[in-house]
């Protein structure tokens, strides 16, 4: 069974050793590095099929196949106050984008708590989880397609 991307495992480990303030600062740094989906992949109005469920920050997720069989992840966050969504998107971009779909599908939702802490509110948690659900959905679709092609 595939493991989630190594860089994400490593980052989660790093976050676990941080206190709350350090974690917040690190997440803000990630949010600052957030880059929106390029126009070559999607333009407004974004297709609702890419909208993360239950995300109050109006996050959108795209997965584009790369030449080596990986999935490049792209995101948009429409709510200007959606800082956690931007941070989570940037984390996934930097640690998981381009990985094989099997590894993306293996991303454990628990990693959200490792990064954002156990005191994450239910609403916020639901939104971040919704973004991950879309990543899982896209990855599993590609896995199923591959199996179909080789089966």
């Amino acid at each position, binding site marked *: 069974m595939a493991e989630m991307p190594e860089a994400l495992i490593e980052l989660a480990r790093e976050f676990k050793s941080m206190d*709350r*303030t350090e974690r*917040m*600062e690190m*997440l*803000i740094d990630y*949010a600052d590095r957030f880059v929106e989906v390029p126009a070559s992949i999607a333009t407004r109005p974004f297709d609702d099929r890419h909208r993360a469920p*239950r995300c*109050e920050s109006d996050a959108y997720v795209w997965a584009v196949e790369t030449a080596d069989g990986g999935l490049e992840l792209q995101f948009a966050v429409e709510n*200007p*106050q*959606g*800082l*956690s969504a931007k*941070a989570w998107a940037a984390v996934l971009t930097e640690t998981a984008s381009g990985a094989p779909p099997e590894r993306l599908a293996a991303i454990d*939702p628990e990693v959200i708590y490792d990064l954002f*802490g156990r*005191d994450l*509110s*239910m*609403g*916020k*948690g*639901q939104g971040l*989880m919704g973004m991950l659900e879309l990543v899982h959905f896209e990855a599993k679709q590609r896995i199923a397609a591959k199996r179909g092609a080789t089966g």
Partner: protein
Amino acid sequence: MTDLAARGYARADVLVSTDWVAAHLADPAVRVIESNEDPLLYPSGHIPGAVQVDWAVDLNDQVRRDYLDRAGFEKLMSRIGVTRDSTVVFYGDKNNWWACYAFWVFQLFGHGNARVMDGGRIKWEKEGRALTREGPGIVPTEYEAPPRDDARIRIFRDQVLAHMRAGRKLVDVRSPQEFTGERTHMPEYPQEGVLRGGHIPGARNVPWARAVDPIDGTFRDAAGLRAIYQDEMQLERDEPVVAYCRIGERSSHTWFVLTYLLGFSDVKNYDGSWTEWGNSVGLPIEKS
């Protein structure tokens, strides 16, 4: 939205505008407090001089399910540089949802000199006003709080049961799906999970955000609020009303609206809310 004084509120003085806050940034008698759902917002940039009150770590006892005690409140006030004479002004994300929650907790300790910045953080941002990442440089204060008074604005499960049995008014401020019992919780979030869905029998459903203008995040004027709470929901200003949600945060927003903007005389927030009621053995539940 119109000038605050012209909106017909029972207590217009409890709201301040973004202009008012901008004009009092250097006022030593005023302490601006940001309270958000998203803990990243304040450190990423806040109103200059504002302090943060974080609902997760500052307002709650970290062991028992309860709010901080008198000593804890005094310590918090000292840390954020508030005296008994300070005017505290709350603002935050999500249409001041969490700002109203912090406001409500402050009222448990009788800090009456409190205001909410109408429109919250999003209005301040949209107006292009200054935000900073610099710490506010607080000098700790001496703050002597009275004992926490839970009787006036807070209500507990057995009291809610008696209130319900007496046929008194309850406002469930959760989403319609939570009210009908269609949705209880997401399986990934057992910390706020609940075993049964539905609502307290007799409760009326008014999702909390209806009190806010969806365009600019400011509170609706008194006529707009009366149309929702009094005309549509048949709540009376002189009747006791209990507001609840899932853990008492959304309902503190409605408590604020009913108490200060519409001048209801006896509104209590049931912070045990659905996570207590829907998990309690034998309590009556209504669906749909």
